[in-house]
């Protein structure tokens, strides 16, 4: 390919034609959207609360519910005995009890739940439940968990999973290196902090079935697990994932659904549960804290020869999606952007008595990228090369396979992003403030790669349905959940283009387990699934509508689908028949109804691991460090993304910028510290996330062009923006101060101490 694709600023001026407000923005701004936790209007609604463990690790000797049951206003109290089906859940392994019976493994463990006439009565009832514990020594970190003689948290021990990814001969590789750098890195237990905490309502129906209206990330997967827990056939459980106040992976696993379902079955009344922030902190999923050790070497010319990364991930008390996070972590730890002949990655995923870790935007990849990109900067320094030059000499090309040996489809050559990053205006901003005054400015850059989909080897199917309703609307249904990412806007734009209709003709239905299963709303897969579904449906759809139109009109002239109906397919052709008329006049005849179901693209050779569809990002960061306090202000971020075609520009922009600020939080600010399984904070007074005052000025440039022959012009970009931000920020801090933080979040006090120690080396 001679044509080097160019990066175009993603703004209204350059994307005027595709720019439009999110279809759901008006109702959100005016406070009209009903979120799952706004479902307060159900007649007879009861308020549920869950009793959590008092200890990080203990035997339960006795549970007494009698006092709570006899409190006036309490309608039901349930515990493990009340579970008709299986008392366990978990997306990969069902190792987490709905209610604990004989043992608790972390402070978020549930023991019982109450439904009462008011939230206050429910809260009071919890205090009346008597649980007798025998406390056990708790495992506060992964080192303790792996030590010999440590108490075993699960029957197979404390090592939940391990990964080993290697090629070449690592020792021989290091023996050939002229320069080797090694370092430890650590990343924090970040919390999702979706503004809407976990919640929703379970509603018993006349026929003995249950409907859930909740915040979740997959109605179908929740339904399957809930049916098993509730002892109901799947067709008697319906899960509707309502448009939700944020997910980021933290609502992938079941949350309040089992308790609400059990209470609703028991009382025959709708039961609402809404975690408050403290309960969300205590029981909710977190990002895996990871300890890493990395060793990377190159030859005298700066060619990477060997790279080794060993890591231990604290997965907390239960498995959740930990094993899948470990796989994605390992793929990124193997430095997927670079050609390295000798690589060894070892990862251990370890049970502790800490908060359960699972899915979180980036899914382990961004933590690994932090270490890898930091290693490259250190190695460049050791070898006397610029960071950019070392990368340029080692970048993988689009013809190379992925780190798992899988075929992969890069959107463009990674050096295109490197060049765009080097051309960023951020490198040239006025640096007058870099004089030895209070503020030190610095610029840094990092690259990232990210794959779409759950990963080869895992079941990863998607589907959709499409029909013309009797009212003449085009009803398009997916199983996805709208949690802010803009899937409604994307589906609308994709459907208008594929089906030739207008937005007004469409009725988009999402997130209902009675509708089509599109797979989970995670792993940046929705846009890919939606595009592929519409590609598969469009020809049949158009053919069937046109055939119907011709037979109703008794006219064989050519027609095409268009806005509002079928149009004569000729220059200046007029509309022949509206969709409404098609529906109403075809009495008795069945209206077009289509379904599709297919597997997520895994490439031609279907390797058992790795991801086929790849995306790339370069992030350039500019920071200002306060020499008095060590505080870091991120002033500017410039991202260059290659993630296929931009479907809905404001959503794309929001996903990149939002992910970057979330990553900035992880890099500089956020952590849930735990001590022997005890949380050291429980709310947003001590867990700080970036505010408007912390927000940088951001620019996103997009490379939309893909290689000829790439059949997937549209990729999912929900996680791309978090991929490279941490190492870019640390590079910028190093540029400003000479100090390179390797432990995230890079706290002001730690940075300040290191700066003071290195004061003599300042420019």
């Amino acid at each position, binding site marked *: 390919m001679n044509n080097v694709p160019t990066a175009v600023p993603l703004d209204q001026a350059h994307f005027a034609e595709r720019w439009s*407000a*999110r279809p*759901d*923005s*008006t109702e*959100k*701004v*005016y*406070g*009209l*959207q009903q*979120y799952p*936790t*706004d479902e*307060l*209007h159900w007649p007879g609604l009861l308020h549920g609360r869950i009793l959590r463990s008092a200890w990080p690790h203990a035997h339960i000797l006795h549970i007494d519910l009698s006092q709570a049951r006899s409190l006036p*206003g309490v309608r039901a109290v349930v515990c493990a005995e009340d579970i008709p089906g299986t008392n366990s859940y978990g997306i990969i392994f069902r190792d987490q009890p709905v209610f604990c019976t004989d043992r608790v493994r972390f402070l978020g463990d549930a023991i019982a739940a109450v439904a009462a006439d*008011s*939230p*206050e*009565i429910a*809260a*009071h009832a919890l205090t009346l439940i008597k649980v007798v514990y025998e406390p056990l020594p708790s495992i506060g970190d992964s080192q303790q968990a792996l030590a010999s003689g440590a108490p075993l948290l699960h029957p197979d021990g404390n090592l939940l999973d391990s990964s080993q990814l290697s090629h070449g001969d690592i020792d021989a590789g290091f023996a050939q290196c002229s320069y080797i750098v090694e370092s430890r890195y650590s990343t924090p237990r970040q919390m*999702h*902090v*979706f*503004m*809407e*905490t976990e919640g929703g309502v379970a509603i018993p129906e006349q026929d003995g079935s249950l409907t859930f209206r909740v915040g979740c990330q997959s109605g179908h997967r929740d339904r399957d697990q809930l049916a098993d827990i509730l002892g109901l056939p799947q067709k008697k459980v319906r899960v509707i994932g309502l448009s*939700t*106040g*944020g997910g980021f992976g933290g609502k992938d696993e079941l949350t309040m659904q089992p308790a609400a379902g059990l209470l609703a079955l028991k009382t025959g009344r709708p039961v609402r549960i*809404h975690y*408050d*922030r403290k309960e969300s902190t205590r029981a909710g999923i977190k990002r895996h804290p990871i300890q890493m050790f990395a060793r990377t070497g190159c030859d005298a010319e700066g060619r990477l020869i060997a790279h080794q990364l060993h890591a231990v991930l604290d997965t907390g008390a239960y498995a959740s999606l930990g094993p899948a996070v470990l796989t994605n972590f390992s793929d990124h730890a193997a430095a997927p952007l670079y050609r390295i002949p000798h690589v060894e990655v070892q990862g251990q995923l370890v049970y502790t008595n800490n908060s359960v870790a699972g899915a979180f935007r980036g899914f382990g990849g961004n933590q690994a990228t932090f270490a890898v990109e930091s290693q490259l900067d250190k190695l460049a320094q050791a070898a006397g090369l610029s960071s950019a030059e070392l990368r340029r000499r080692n970048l993988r090309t689009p013809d190379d396979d992925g780190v798992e040996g899988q075929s992969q489809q890069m959107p463009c050559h990674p050096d295109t992003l490197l060049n765009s990053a080097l051309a960023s205006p951020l490198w040239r901003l006025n640096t007058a403030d870099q004089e030895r005054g209070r503020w030190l400015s610095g610029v840094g850059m990092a690259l990232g790669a990210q794959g779409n989909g759950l990963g080869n080897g895992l079941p990863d199917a998607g589907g959709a349905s499409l029909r013309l309703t009797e009212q003449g609307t085009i009803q398009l249904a997916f199983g996805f959940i709208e*949690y*802010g*990412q*803009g899937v409604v806007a994307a589906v609308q734009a994709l459907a208008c283009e594929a089906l030739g209709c207008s937005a007004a003709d469409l009725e988009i239905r999402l997130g209902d387990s009675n509708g089509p299963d599109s797979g989970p709303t995670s792993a940046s897969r929705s846009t890919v699934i939606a595009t592929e579904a519409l590609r598969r449906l469009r020809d049949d759809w158009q053919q069937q509508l046109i055939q119907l139109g011709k037979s109703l009109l008794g006219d064989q002239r050519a027609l095409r689908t268009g806005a509002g109906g079928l149009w004569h397919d000729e220059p200046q052709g007029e509309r022949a028949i509206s969709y409404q008329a098609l529906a109403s006049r075809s009495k008795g005849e069945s209206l077009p109804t289509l379904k599709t179901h297919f597997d997520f693209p895994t490439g031609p050779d279907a390797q058992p691991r790795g991801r086929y569809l790849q995306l790339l990002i370069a992030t350039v960061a500019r920071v200002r460090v306060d020499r008095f306090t060590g505080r870091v202000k991120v002033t500017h971020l410039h991202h260059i993304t290659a993630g296929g075609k931009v479907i809905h520009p*404001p*959503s794309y*922009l*929001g*996903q990149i*910028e*939002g*992910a*970057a*600020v*979330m990553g900035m939080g992880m890099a500089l600010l956020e952590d849930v510290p735990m001590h022997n399984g005890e949380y050291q904070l429980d*709310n*947003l*007074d001590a867990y700080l*996330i*970036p*505010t*408007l*005052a912390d*927000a940088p000025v*951001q620019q996103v440039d997009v490379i939309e062009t893909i290689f000829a022959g790439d059949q997937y012009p549209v990729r999912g970009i929900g996680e791309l923006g978090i991929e490279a931000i941490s190492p870019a920020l640390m590079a910028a801090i190093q540029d400003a101060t000479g100090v390179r933080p390797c432990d995230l979040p890079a706290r002001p006090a730690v940075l300040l101490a290191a700066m003071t120690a290195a004061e003599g080396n300042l420019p």
Partner: protein
Amino acid sequence: MSTQNTAASMQLNFTLNGQLLNMRVGPARRLLDILRLDQGLTGPKEGCSIGRCGACTVQLDGAAVPACLLLAYQVQGKEVSTVEGLSSQPVFQRVADSLIEHGALQCGYCIPGIATSLTAALTQKPHASAAELEQAMCGNLCRCTGYSGLQQVINDLASPDQHI
């Protein structure tokens, strides 16, 4: 325990979205519960319950305040407005149009609170500067957007000669 059923309930009179309300209620019942649970107004959201996130922001006599921190007795005789009541005001509509135009929201859970805070700031000071509007946002968190849209909204709403 139950603030609703406390024996010493009080007679509470206050104006909610322009309507005078009289009710018997525990003096320590949170305004947010009165609004959401008793009055069915779900525009104000709950995100932290301790005055840190701004999702529950309402106006109390025109000032933006977190409804999760206000107790019933504190609104006696006062005027409370939620997004439901503000939405017919021209200032709110200007704020809303700008938020929508600049795509300053994703999940939107934070946005009624943000719109309420901006409306209060612009009502109190129609020619507020961008710095003043940014200051007015100090109690409102958003986890989705990274605030870029909001930066544009603020520049758009601030007095032309007062940009940062």
